[in-house]
């Protein structure tokens, strides 16, 4: 059974610490080149196809800005 996931990052609240990027087991996440209104490079799904919805990124997020969605395929 395989899973496919996707995340939604609250760009305005993200502080771009990069802890989610370091904890992503599949290398889905990266920090954006753009900044939000507070000047932080927010996290985003650089390679959405790789996401498996494991929730590791949301679990370690200090600002709780990540929502994770997951489906069976």
């Amino acid at each position: 059974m395989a899973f496919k996931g996707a995340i939604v990052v609250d760009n305005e609240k993200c502080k771009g610490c990069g802890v989610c990027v370091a904890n992503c087991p599949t290398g889905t996440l990266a920090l954006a080149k753009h900044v939000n209104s507070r000047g932080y490079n927010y996290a985003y799904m650089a390679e959405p196809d790789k996401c498996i919805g494991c929730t590791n990124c949301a679990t370690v997020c200090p600002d709780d800005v990540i929502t994770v969605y997951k489906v069976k395929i």
Partner: protein
Amino acid sequence: MDVKDIIKPENMVYGKTKLLTDNILHYCPGCSHGVVHKLIAEVIDEMGIQDKTIGISPVGCAVFAYNYIDIDWEEAAHGRAPALATATKRLNPDKYVFTYQGDGDLASIGTAEIMHACNRGENIVVIFINNAIYGMTGGQMAPTTLLGMKTATTPYGRRADLNGYPLKITELIAQLEGTCYVTRQSVETAPAVRKAKKAIRKAFENSMMKKGTSFVEIVSTCNSGWKIPPVKANKWMEENMFPFYPLGDMKDR
């Protein structure tokens, strides 16, 4: 499958708990405080004790904790959170009372309060954030600062002959008869966060069983104080803090 087809309310597996308010945390990027706030909010939410929980916030970075978790809060003088928690718990024995303290608050100015509250076996939960530095005031040396660690007041590294030795306060507290659960956790990786959440939940459950004080230390990072970026700070913590502050349960009865 397109991302838009996955992002639907019925597929959500992890989201912000309702107990956390929408305020943006004032902590620096990557600060462990945010994770611990989230864990406490999730545990309270899962146990369904929102209207029965009273938190005591400390003096330190977490002084504004009452802005972020939607429960009743009290604000203690520096280091006096365990004394306030004692009174609160004794007057409201049916409430869950917890203190949230940093290492400067708990291990330095509040040593007397925490020692005696734990020795009396007050039925409270103590969440202790140990980042080995005074974060809010600008990164000065704390009692828990490691030997050789550079801080604003020990610019050449902490020296044992001049500054004394780092204080393992959790080990001291584990010696006290009044405590029932003493553990040390961390929140730098997803498995560690899940373990820490279990520990916090157990501590909250213990506080209603009249077994004594539950003490949860979280070894944390202070990126601004250590002057290391968040991800590297987590690595630095694993390499330097964990050998001196080993993780695990020290006491569980």
